[in-house]
């Protein structure tokens, strides 16, 4: 035993105090630095995506005076058939030629025709089919410009010259002339939200992918939540603790860490090759994602059940409730917020998956908006992947815009998980 006087003890403590404070500061500083790094990375990602993607929400549009001339359209009598097969391309060409009357040579005419989107005739077809009384009349309409023109017009904001890679001098002068007469402007891009995929960027939209994602997630939720909760309840409330349940637990934890492509291979072998379900269908996508999210839901549901104090169960049993009554009337309502949080996080994970869908044919070009769970469909992240791989310049901004939509969905889902937990969680 060494005998230290109080003064000596005090002295020693004071000696070390400085270094202890320094260490404390360093420790806290490290934490702050990590958070700052994270925030910096997120900010970088968001500014990059938003600066690239915001352009996709506007689309260059061209105003044309359209005459529904029956002679040009080739309509003799009005019926559904003649309206479907009428020469709407000719009408658009006539309108362009009327706007630029001095275009005469064949090659110039050809170039002029590429000023507006190739979707313009189909817009007119739908319009005339809905309002047959327009035949023979003239109206002023806005049409989406071709993607090369759109890219050129948007690049004019950055530099006076603009990106002229695929735009000729001729086209640039037409664009200038339209701009001066107010017949060319950037308008909100509704097509982006109402159309399915397209090879023409100005006609491409995320609607089909969004609906596909929704249908796939519905199937996933409808299957994985009940199965996951039932499995968790059995394992927590009924199952005896023995080697078998240990084995099951190890396996569940293992499955949660299996790379998702493996589930895709499994889905291909079982659902498509064995059960012969259709390829590219949200039904199969949902089944595969169910397999993938089940472990997440089971684990979080078990944790939620575990956090319900045993006194509640004992009290209920003491009042003569059966096992089932204990679970359904008391434990489950208390554990529900935790289970829902787990389910939402599982769904958010499923929403962002592409790898398992590759094998079952959902990485595909889908134009038609799927109407049911067996129609061919794709999902949002796949749409992003496909656009990112496309050569057309105008797809670059659409890729980022689709990422923004996907991110906002993820933020909403994760925020609701946090809110739900805050609101409903009970502490003991």
């Amino acid at each position, binding site marked *: 035993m060494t005998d230290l006087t109080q003064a000596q003890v005090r002295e020693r403590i004071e000696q070390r105090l400085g270094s202890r404070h320094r260490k404390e500061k360093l420790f806290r500083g490290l934490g702050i630095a990590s958070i700052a790094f994270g925030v910096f990375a997120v900010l970088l990602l968001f500014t990059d995506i938003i600066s690239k993607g915001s352009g996709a929400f506007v689309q260059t549009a061209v105003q044309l005076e359209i005459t529904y001339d029956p002679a040009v359209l080739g309509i003799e009598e009005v019926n559904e058939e003649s309206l479907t097969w009428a020469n709407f391309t000719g009408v658009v060409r006539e309108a362009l030629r009327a706007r630029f009357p001095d275009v005469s040579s064949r090659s110039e005419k050809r170039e002029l025709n590429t000023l507006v989107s190739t979707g313009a005739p189909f817009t007119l077809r739908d319009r005339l089919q809905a309002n047959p009384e327009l035949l023979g009349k003239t109206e002023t309409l806005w049409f989406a410009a071709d993607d090369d023109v759109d890219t050129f017009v948007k690049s004019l904001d950055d530099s006076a010259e603009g990106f002229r890679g695929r735009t000729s001098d001729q086209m640039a002068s037409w664009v200038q002339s339209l701009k001066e007469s107010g017949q060319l402007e950037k308008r909100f891009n509704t097509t982006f939200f109402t159309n399915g995929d397209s*090879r023409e960027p100005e006609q491409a939209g995320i609607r089909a992918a969004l609906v596909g994602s929704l249908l796939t997630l519905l199937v996933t939720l409808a299957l994985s939540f009940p199965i996951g909760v039932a499995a968790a309840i059995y394992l927590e409330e009924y199952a005896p603790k023995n080697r078998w349940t240990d084995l099951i637990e190890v396996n569940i934890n293992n499955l949660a860490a299996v790379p998702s492509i493996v589930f895709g291979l499994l889905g291909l072998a079982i659902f498509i090759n064995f059960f012969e379900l*259709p390829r590219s269908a949200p039904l199969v996508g949902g089944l595969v994602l169910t397999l993938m999210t089940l472990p997440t839901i089971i684990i979080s549901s078990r944790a939620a059940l575990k956090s319900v104090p045993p006194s509640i169960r004992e009290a209920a049993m003491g009042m003569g409730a059966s096992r089932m009554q204990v679970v359904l009337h008391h434990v489950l309502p208390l554990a529900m917020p935790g289970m829902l949080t787990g389910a939402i996080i599982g769904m958010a994970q499923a929403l962002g998956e592409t790898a398992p869908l590759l094998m079952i044919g959902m990485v595909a070009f889908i*134009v038609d908006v799927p109407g049911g769970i067996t129609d061919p469909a794709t999902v949002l992240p796949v749409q992003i992947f*496909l656009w990112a*791989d496309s*050569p*057309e310049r105008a797809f670059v901004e659409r890729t980022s815009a689709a990422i923004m939509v996907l991110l906002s969905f993820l933020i909403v889902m994760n925020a609701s998980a946090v809110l739900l937990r805050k609101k409903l969680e009970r502490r003991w």
Partner: protein
Amino acid sequence: MNKRILATSLAALTIAASQAASAARDHISIVGSSTVYPFTTTVAERFSRATQFKTPVVESTGTGGGMKLFCQGVGESTADITGASRRIKQSELDMCKENGVDVIEVQVGYDGIVLANAKSAETYKLSRKDIFLALAKEVPNPDGSETLVANPYKTWKDVNPALPNVKIEVLGPPPTSGTRDAFAELAMEGGCKKFDWIAAKKDQDKNAYKSICHNVREDGAYIEAGENDNLIVNKLVANPNALGIFGFSFLDQNADKVHGSVIEGHAPTFDSIAEQSYPVSRPLFIYVKKAHASVIPGMKQFLAEFTSERAWGEDGYLADKGMIPLPTAKRQQVAKNVREMNALSNLAQK
């Protein structure tokens, strides 16, 4: 009048088809190469808009993956058409035959592979021999003896004194990519063959010849930049010393950022690839399952659309998407073959 007849017959056909096989798939299913994907999807979209058929579903699975799915067998659960950025292999044709699949070969056009760099750097004038010497894993000994040494070249000037004194740095696709296969075969093997003693090996030991000509160096001069060509374009802009390997359509769309190297006196342009004077270009194919042509609604019309002048012609919409059209005579021959539905029996047949 004609249009009306067409419309009625189309409608009748759709109804007949849907009644005959009410459970059958009502859309065409296409798989295959990601290089052909932009073109098949373009045709698919136009086809569905102009007719009453559902839009074909086009999956991008890669050439090899597509062949596997395609040759699985006959039946509505298998694909109808597969795209390929190279010709079908004998082994794949055998697999198809084993499973009772008769294939119709349709060559649809060409695709150029370019070696490009940032616009801020000078345009390279290369020969295929330069490309081989710069990128092969093992090259002929610079002292002239007929032996191979590990690639000693560090700069382009080392390879060819006429080239700039810049470190060799090439960004390209990984070995799983069809573009990489085609690049190895067309550009590297093309240069490799210029050495007579290596070319002589082709008859003696085909595997050794292939490994000399196709193996890319792994010492960091060739950088695998992933399958995404847009990414390579962006990396080139950031690094003016590097060259990148990608498809012609990406050069066409990014002409403000990058320019293609001149190979053996020919710059990669639409015309030089169409004339076949640009040496690094490859044929693109689609393979059609003969047995499905009369079962799946719209198959024949889809093929007719694909092989129509407004699609694959010199001024067609596929040319606008970056596909290089076939010469006129070849187009007519292929289109005739498609109309007659002649199946491919062996690879010797052209």
